[in-house]
């Protein structure tokens, strides 16, 4: 009995696999037949917004059409992309995408959300806002992305808490979205958050700060140089040090008990320092942590106005083996780094 049921289940699983394959093959063949006409219509519309006509698109094919539009849009100039969006509106496909938000599978809903974002369709806003608050990671993040495309400033305001606290929205993905919006758009929100220093999520804002306008973010960040109690803040602030006025802070940070702060201080000294900072950097070259020594050596090698001969002298006079080895390493890396810069 068990034997028979086991074989029957196996056969059933294989039959389901066969059915899925057969259906997929039929669908692919069908899409392949129609895709050429979709592509042609989109290309015509890209050149002239009033040109191009689409044959009726069934519900089964609709997500694939939207996917093609999303892909093609990515390779078009802004004007041409807007023209193709007009084609979609002319055929009422924007309204169909709106309906898809409610009834589709996860795949088709995600495609519809992305499409409505790119169409900047304001009618989708309430639904997208609800989806962005939802628990599903993919749906909520795609909805948030769509909102940011539709009305960036309003979306940033609406999504502030989520940006700070939703651990399932990776900072890397948020970074890509903020980069897409551009520094001018994201800076007001970022600076507000940086000034407010929220208890939860400040680490995320600090990481995202790089997507804001440096000239507006840097003064706030540099204000944290005195936040001795929080190494992460001091470290982030040191990355924005680019003026000799902050030399005193950088020199103080070079003596910080946390090695990551000393490493950031070495980098900062390399950016703003000159020959006068060599003794401080040579001290960092003796640091017990390899990374501090490495960045100190890079800083010495990168100091303004230092010639290779002067660097060699620093290396020869370094009494510490660690320091001498690391300087030799940095000197050998110099031509490689220069090649990278000019590549």
């Amino acid at each position, binding site marked *: 009995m*068990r*034997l028979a049921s*086991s*074989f029957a*289940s*196996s*056969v059933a*699983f*294989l039959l*389901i*696999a*066969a059915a*899925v*394959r*057969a259906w*997929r*093959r039929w669908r692919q063949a069908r899409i392949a037949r129609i895709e050429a006409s979709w592509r042609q219509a989109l290309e015509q519309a890209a050149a002239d917004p009033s040109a191009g006509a689409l044959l009726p698109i069934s519900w089964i094919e609709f997500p694939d059409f939207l*996917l093609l539009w*999303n*892909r093609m849009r*990515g390779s078009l100039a802004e004007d041409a992309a807007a023209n193709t969006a007009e084609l979609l509106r002319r055929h009422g496909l924007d309204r169909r995408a709106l309906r898809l938000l409610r009834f589709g*599978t*996860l*795949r088709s809903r*995600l*495609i519809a959300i*992305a499409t409505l974002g790119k169409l900047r369709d304001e009618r989708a806003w309430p639904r997208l806002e609800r989806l962005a608050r939802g628990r599903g990671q*993919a749906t909520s993040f*795609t909805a948030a992305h769509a909102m940011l495309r539709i009305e960036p400033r309003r979306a940033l305001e609406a999504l502030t808490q989520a940006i700070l606290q939703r651990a*399932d929205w*990776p*900072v*890397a*993905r*948020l*970074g*890509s979205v903020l*980069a*897409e919006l551009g520094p001018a758009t994201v800076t007001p929100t970022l600076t507000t958050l940086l000034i407010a220093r929220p208890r939860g999520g400040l680490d995320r804002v600090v*990481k995202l700060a*790089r997507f804001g306008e440096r000239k507006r973010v840097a003064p706030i960040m540099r204000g944290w140089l005195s936040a001795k109690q929080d190494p992460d803040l001091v470290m982030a602030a040191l990355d924005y040090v680019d003026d000799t006025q902050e030399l005193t802070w950088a020199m103080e940070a070079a003596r910080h008990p946390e090695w990551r702060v000393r490493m950031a201080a070495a980098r900062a000294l390399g950016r703003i320092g000159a020959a006068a900072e060599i003794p401080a950097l040579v001290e960092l070259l003796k640091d017990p942590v*390899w990374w501090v*020594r*490495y960045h100190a*050596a890079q800083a010495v090698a990168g100091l303004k106005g230092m010639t290779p001969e002067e660097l060699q002298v620093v290396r020869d006079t370094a009494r510490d083996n*660690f320091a001498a*080895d*690391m300087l*030799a*390493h940095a*000197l*050998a890396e110099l031509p*490689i780094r220069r*090649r*990278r810069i000019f590549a």
Partner: protein
Amino acid sequence: MIRALVWFFIGYFLVAYGGRVLLHLIGVPALLRGLALRPFNDMPAPHSGFEPPVSVIVAASGDVATVIASANALLDLEYPQFEIIVVCDDGMPGSLAAVQEAFQLQPFPEALWRRIPSGEVRTVYQSFLHDHLRVLDKEGFGRADALNAGINASRFPLVCAIDPGLRVQRDALQRLAEPFLEEASTVACMSHMRVDGAGALPRSLLRVLQVVEALAAFVFRRVGWDALHASVPMQGDIVLLRKDVVVEANGFRADSECEDTELALRLHRSLLARGDRYAMRFLPDPVAWTAGHDSTLAVIRPRQRWQHGFAQGLRRNAGLLAPAGLGQGPALPLMLFFESYGAAIEVGGYAFVIAMWAAGLLPGAVAGAFLAFTVSLGFLVSATALLLETLSSDLYPGLRQLARLAVVAIVENLGYRQLMTFARAAALLPRRRPTA
């Protein structure tokens, strides 16, 4: 007594094989989610600058031409920032000169940071042609020691050991690094290398058998274990690791026969003991390809080596089978138990039933029914794996290929799977010498 034992073995097969089918089903939501997200993942995405840089370490072994070809292929990986460190040791005399010529190497005064024990590095070379390629010339103490030396020389927070000869997809690092971006507590991400021939199955029956076996044992079963937080690298995996945890664990053990698995078990043990929240992830998507083996013996050897190394690693980290291993739920100890001792119990079942039948203590019909039952359960596991393959990556599309895979799945359960089980059980014998 005989009846009771027969029922025990029937029960064991039901639990072990039923568990495998259950694991396949547990993995379905994750696979379907991956399928829904695929259109987005396939679109070119801008780098955010948060992608953690990766140090790829190649421990040179085998043919030097393969090492050079592999390093050349790895240089073309698509990832924002990575470096390649090729480690040549005394185990491959003459290889350094060839590598030196191929990549125009020059000695580099590297200030090495020896954080984990490894053999003496004689010289570090920097390629004049490729800024992100360095080569270490060191004393030869095996692969684990070479990887440790590579980790000491590495500059980036993630490390990935890749063996020469593997065909690595250009987006491999991107895919493997994804879990590290999504979840900060990720310490390792692994993917199983697949047998060459995506799109069309290999002609050789032995290679197709390896494909069918891998789908069930090395890919989809592990999607289920992954959902239950019980991932451990297996033979033929490519693993991306967080360097700080590897360094803290003192690197790979040179006296281990299966260093990647042993390290992962050690990491599980130490992180669970500390009560840390961590994730070891398994990716079902293929990121690397291999030609597969062309003889049964060649298939068996690495299997035995892994089984032996796994048992060795588990003995050294036996705490994982105790309550200490329950830190992330009961899945990890269960997985370790079935992967390490499952083969031996299965072989015990076959041997017992056949011996009892031969001694006339068990009717032929009962023995035959028992064996047919085990075959049917094995086929059920393979059939669910083929369904999941269809639902997810669909590497071998079309009805004809499905039919071929289904036939091979039957063949697999009529001797091949049992042979592999015997080989794995034999690798557990205490006096057996390592088959490296």
